[in-house]
């Protein structure tokens, strides 16, 4: 799949929407410092992130309605912990992995981030969606992704991936949004503007 300029812009705007909603939830400014957008064969996704065995925190949400999609927000343990501290404060977070409150915060944060992202993409297509409840996972990157890859392999082999850096006061949060859309949605996004672009950096 070729990444069109329109598709890259739409995805970058979706990341901006995600940052805005996170900032509103956290009550602190959060800006998108960069968002590199890539269009990939699904099989290339794990290799773009890290070693497939690397431990990542993943927040998964699917969407129903006008934009059938899978979205996986991926971040390292360190980023997840910084995110928790940003939202809950140092006093409330001991270690996120052992703390139900922190895990709940990651789920809620992920829900906000992925819902805003999917809603923004849906708006680009003039449609609406219903996100599924978020699911928080801590596992190997490859393991988290391959179930989605298997599911999408039945329909089409492409994914949109955004490596984003979100910046809050005293915190830098690196996260990857891996979006798997059905073929019709990808085509609609691709046709929503003109001119090809292999990658885009906001």
């Amino acid at each position, binding site marked *: 799949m070729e990444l069109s300029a329109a598709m890259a812009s739409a995805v970058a705007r979706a990341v901006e929407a995600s940052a805005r909603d996170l900032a509103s939830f956290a009550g602190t400014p959060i800006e998108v410092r960069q968002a590199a957008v890539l269009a990939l064969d699904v099989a290339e996704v794990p290799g773009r992130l890290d*070693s497939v*065995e690397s431990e990542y925190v993943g927040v998964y949400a699917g969407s129903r309605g006008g934009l059938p999609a899978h979205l996986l927000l991926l971040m390292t343990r360190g980023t997840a912990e910084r995110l928790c501290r940003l939202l809950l404060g140092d006093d409330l977070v001991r270690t996120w992995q052992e703390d139900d409150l922190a895990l709940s915060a990651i789920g809620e944060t992920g829900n906000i981030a992925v819902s805003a992202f999917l809603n923004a993409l849906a708006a680009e297509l003039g449609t609406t969606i219903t996100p599924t409840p978020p699911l928080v996972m*801590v*596992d190997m990157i*490859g393991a988290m992704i391959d*179930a989605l890859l*298997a*599911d999408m*392999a039945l329909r089409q082999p492409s994914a949109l991936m955004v490596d984003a850096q979100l910046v809050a006061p005293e915190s830098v949060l690196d996260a990857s949004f891996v979006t798997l859309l059905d073929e019709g949605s990808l085509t609609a996004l691709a046709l929503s503007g003109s001119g090809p672009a292999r990658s885009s950096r906001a």
Partner: protein
Amino acid sequence: MIALGAVNIGLGELVASVDPGVTLGALGLGSCIAVVVYDGRARVGGLAHVVLPIVPPGHGVMVPGRFAPLAVPELVRRAEELGASRKRLRAWLVGGAHVLPAAALAVGDIGERNARACRDALRSLRVAVAGEAVGGAKGRSVRLAVADGTVAWRTIGEDWRPL
């Protein structure tokens, strides 16, 4: 990393080898299944990283290693080409976890379906299954040492354990 001389078998790939210096591995398996085969006398081993339990209707089948009904016979065929005997081959299955709830996926419980399809394919080829580490909710990695047929697997943060 899995070992010096390691060959990582990616999604939908399959490899057979008679090189004793090679370790075949599949890392970060979620719902996918690694099918490992080994002939202890010929010292021939192989590994397939299976993604789907069926060949989707209308699919071009450009990557047979992705689909259990095609990958397993192809893996056995390649091992036989290198001198393995089907009668001596033993198989191991690793992966097939429920990393995501089945309700989230169009294909349902893909991990369990993958495991069942691989067992069925091995049974139809009369290749015995010597061990399994399948199901559960956590991803796995697996490796096969071609030199001696040692099969080991692990989940995140754990040491390799023999199967």
